């Protein structure tokens, strides 16, 4: 579903993404993990053809993203990092607008399904600018899945959602993958990856430092948090002792 080879994006001196190779098969729920500023959002923007890579190749749905980014965005669903639906449309009007842009027919029922799923109630007639951030995130989630894409690319899927909605979204994503869909999520919250992902990649300072399935024996022996901290800590030049010391310190504070 996603094939990436030698993908890099440089901004002057900054290497936002540096030589990433990645392959994600149909039916996977892949989680790209990494600390803040490690290159996750840049990866997503390149995969969706919003920005061009400095070098490397990338195919989504078998389509070269560089050659036909519009076709890629037609086929997939995307939830961007920031929830910014147009201010002066209502939630309902925004979903209708997206459906029109995607040239969907008979979309009213699909929109209604999502409003019910997220329990919008009266809020679907409120202007997007007046919605809370959580509600706007729900709206962005709905627009990404409105056309029932086979692949969804999501930047921080559960951010701003309350625990009830988080649970609903997690269940939906599990079911979606079970029915043959593919999901690429980026997050820095390890629990999310642990709960729902089938495979993960860890990106640090633009480099993909680990990829594997969550049932990988290397991961089975440790918990994901320790594994992540060890991997990132090593590269940051932080020894295991220091990490343990800091953990002790945190426990003492707690």
């Amino acid at each position, binding site marked *: 579903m996603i094939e990436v080879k030698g993908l890099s994006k440089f901004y002057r001196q900054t290497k936002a993404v540096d030589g990433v190779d990645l392959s994600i098969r149909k039916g996977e729920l892949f989680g790209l993990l990494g600390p803040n500023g490690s290159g996750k959002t840049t990866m997503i923007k390149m995969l*969706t053809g*919003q920005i061009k890579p400095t070098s490397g190749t990338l195919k989504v749905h078998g389509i070269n993203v560089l050659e036909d980014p519009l076709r890629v965005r037609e086929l997939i669903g995307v939830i961007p990092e*920031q929830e910014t639906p147009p201010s002066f449309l*209502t939630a309902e*009007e925004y979903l*209708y*607008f997206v459906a029109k842009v995607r040239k969907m027919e008979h979309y009213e029922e699909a929109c209604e399904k999502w409003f019910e799923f997220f329990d919008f109630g009266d809020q679907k007639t409120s*202007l997007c600018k*007046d919605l809370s951030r959580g509600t706007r995130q729900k709206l962005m989630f709905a627009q990404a899945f409105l056309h029932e894409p086979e692949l969804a690319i999501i930047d921080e899927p559960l951010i701003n959602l309350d625990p009830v909605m988080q649970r609903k979204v997690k269940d939906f994503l599990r079911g979606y993958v079970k029915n043959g869909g593919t999901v690429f999520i980026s997050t820095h919250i390890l629990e999310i990856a642990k709960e729902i992902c089938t495979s993960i990649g860890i990106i640090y300072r633009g480099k993909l430092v680990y990829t594997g399935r969550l049932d990988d024996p290397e991961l089975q022996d440790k918990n994901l948090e320790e594994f992540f901290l060890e991997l990132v800590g090593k590269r940051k030049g932080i020894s295991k002792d220091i990490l343990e010391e800091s953990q002790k310190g945190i426990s003492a504070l707690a």
Partner: protein
Amino acid sequence: MFDIFKSMIKEEWRMHSSLFGHSGFALFPVFIFLFTFFVSLVLPVFREIVTDAQIALGMHYIFLLVGGMVGAFGLLGREFMNRRFGQASLIAYSSRVLPVSERFIFANFLGKDVVYYFILYILPFVAGFALAAKFVPAGNFGASATLLTLLLTLSISFMIGISAIFFLSTVYAHSGKILLLCLLAASLLLLHISGNFNQGTLYSLPSLSFFLVPSENQLLLSGVLILVPSALSLIFLKIDFPQAQKSFSNSFSKLCRYLGSYRYAAFVAKDSLDLKRSEGGLGKLIFSFVLPLLLVWTLLSALGKVIPALSTLTLFALVLGVLSSSMYNWLTEYDIFSSYAFLPLKASDMIKSKLNSYLILNLVPLVILTLLALKKDPMFLIPSLTLFLTISLYMVSVLVYLTGLSPSINLYNGKIFALYMLSVMPLLMLNIILSMFGPYYALMDLLLIPVALYILGKGFRKWDRNECRCF
């Protein structure tokens, strides 16, 4: 205490320079200086039509308005800021997380606005005017003391504008209804004044009165108009505005149905809802377009009496074309491409959709011009309409090429502003000269159509290549 003030100045500078580019924004006061200088060089021509006092009146009211606009943007423009900068916030809106009072922060905010915009707008304006006064006979404006007084009184006008808006925004924060009552009372007062209207009323702005006839009383009154609203606003400060959540029925679907299978139906429907529901709505069309047009018509009619060779109707069509291009700003004001970049859309699709809405909005000036031409002189109808349509198309094509989907931001970049002026000013000057030789010379402007289409094509390719700046 001074730290917050310094940080706010830095913040304002960085906000502008991140939006418009460092060198581009640094050049902005230079362009205000040059622009004022060149416009002031034709002061002797203006003084044939209007008096020195009328020129001073125009300047003082412009800066009163600028003060109001700066204040309105700083205090009420949170929606715009949120769309540009996402979750980032200004110091003024972060008072709850800082260990200082909101009053203290907002007092600094006001001080910052006064100092910052004095350097950005007022100083270069007066400097450009002062330099031009050395080269042309400037009458009463030539004396150094007069120019220094002008610097002071324009600053006072600016501060009156800011403090008035600060006061109104505080009233609004407490109650939208009280604000409505205040505005109603002000309208009744204005109605009463206009009943007994005489020109002197306009000159009662204290800063202007002080400029024309310096007196302690006027200076004192200016101080009261600045300090009292500001002090009241700080005493009754409330930074959260009432957010009544309004419900709207689905007008988008109705509009789309009405527009049928038209390719840009969804976008035109969205743009019309943006215009209708955003601050201003229909008022924007009246106050930002129709009323300035009335003023322009009055001024051009006066000019036509002084210089009979100039055709009022042709010049009006020209100005109409220029003013119409500002409608493109309205249409792009609340949109940034990053809100759509994840959908199957190119930047050029968005621009094309905005141009479709622009064409529809241009029907308003088209109707105004047609009616006016039919009433004044039907012989001028075809040339005037040609001139208006071609100038409007050319102006918007230059705007699209230079500024893409963000004209209200990119035009503040000094280099872009200079390019814009160079692209349009010679053409406008040529048209003014040609208009003296008869209306049918305007048909030459038909040549602008292929030029404009070529520029638009280049603009589409340029903005498609450009990676979206996500603030």
